[in-house]
């Protein structure tokens, strides 16, 4: 074999080797990239289909599906809209409810305000359970039986004493509905709604809308979209709540 043919063979050999190496690098790189891309796309698609695809909307939801109206058809025309943002797991929300709940209810039933409840679910993240979602779904299911406000109050009245302790399914599904007078066929309907998480999409939408509206903490009270700061509320006598709300008109 001559020197030059040996060199030529070596050159071919090394070109082939370089080509193989190139193919390997591109192959592995493309495989990793494809795996990550496909995973992300599949997960995003699954997430999208999970959220509120076939969710039912409670009868007293607002047209924008961002709240449930506590006093439907009662508010005087042109009156203020009061939005209360809360999380059923939030201890300060329970406190707010016990101080201002009946005052709000009174204003609502008198028609002086249109009272809208907007349940948020972010405390599930903080506390690592699913009680915010669970209770919000249950409350919206109670709206189908005309017991939204009563059920809402019963939830806060029975909030677990220790923050982070979940609401028991027994309480939410069986005891509280009966306490507020959901019985018989209505109870079965309520429990079906709860078991199937029929309103989950609606509840997620309410929470998303609230976050979109800039609410990141609870309780938050909005009057026609304007926030009343908590420290202002803290200095307010519940009997004067109506006057305070008037100032935000």
């Amino acid at each position, binding site marked *: 074999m001559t020197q030059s043919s*040996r*060199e030529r063979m*070596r*050159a071919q*050999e*090394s*070109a*082939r*080797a*370089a080509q*193989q*190496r*190139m193919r*390997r*690098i591109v192959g*592995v*790189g493309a495989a*990793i990239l494809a*795996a*990550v891309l496909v*995973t*992300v796309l599949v*997960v*995003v698609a699954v*997430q*999208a289909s999970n959220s509120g695809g076939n969710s039912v909307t409670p009868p007293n939801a607002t047209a924008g599906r961002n709240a449930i109206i506590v006093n439907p058809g009662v508010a005087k025309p042109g009156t203020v809209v009061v939005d209360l943002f809360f999380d059923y797991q939030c201890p300060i929300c329970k406190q707010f409810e016990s101080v201002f709940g009946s005052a709000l209810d009174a204003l609502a039933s008198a028609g002086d305000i249109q009272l809208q409840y907007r349940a948020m679910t*972010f*405390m*599930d*993240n*903080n506390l690592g359970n699913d009680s915010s979602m669970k209770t919000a779904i249950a409350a919206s299911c109670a709206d189908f039986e005309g017991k939204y406000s009563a059920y809402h109050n019963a939830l806060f009245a029975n909030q677990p004493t220790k923050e982070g302790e979940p609401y028991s399914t027994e309480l939410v599904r069986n005891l509280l509905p009966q306490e507020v007078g959901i019985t018989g066929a209505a109870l079965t309907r309520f429990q079906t709604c709860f078991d199937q998480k029929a309103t989950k999409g609606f509840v997620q939408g309410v929470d998303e809308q609230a*976050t*979109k509206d800039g609410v*990141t*903490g609870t309780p938050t009270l909005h009057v026609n979209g304007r926030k009343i700061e908590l420290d202002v509320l803290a200095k307010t006598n519940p009997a004067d709540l109506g006057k305070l709300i008037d100032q935000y008109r």
Partner: protein
Amino acid sequence: MRGYNEGVSEPTPVPQRSSGWQRWLSLVARLILGVTLLVAGALKVGQLDASVRSVRLYQLLPWEATALVGTALPIIELALGLMLITGTFTRVSAILGSLLMVAFIIAIASVWARGISIDCGCFSPGGEVAADQTQYPQEIARDLGLLLAGAWVAWRPEAPFAVDSWLFGRETPIEPTDEESG
């Protein structure tokens, strides 16, 4: 030797020779960044809804983008973590990991500057915290350290125990031997 490779383009730059201690430092830096990313991704990937919400708490991205970012981030962290730990495309993954850290540092600095009180949501879905409970300096310091590790690996990717040494290894290099030439 040079002559044999002529006309064969090198697809990837051969990393500059690292000295012994540099290789080991690279391994350590690779593992620090890799394990951190892996753990951060793994802790969030099971609760993607919460991860999306964490991203929203930063109030940085348009609403529509948060869903994609919140979902993709844990998956990308997992992938980059695995690549760094195994030393696969080390330089590329170190650069991407470092860019992630830069993004995190900007995001945390921005919520700090805007007076938003949140947990960074780095290793678990974050949430609002009381204003005196925020840990922005610590979180930024940690990410700076990780950025440093990433930058080092990007500069000196060569390290022991790397898939790269197989991936980028040359196929049966032909060395002219004395026998043949003699």
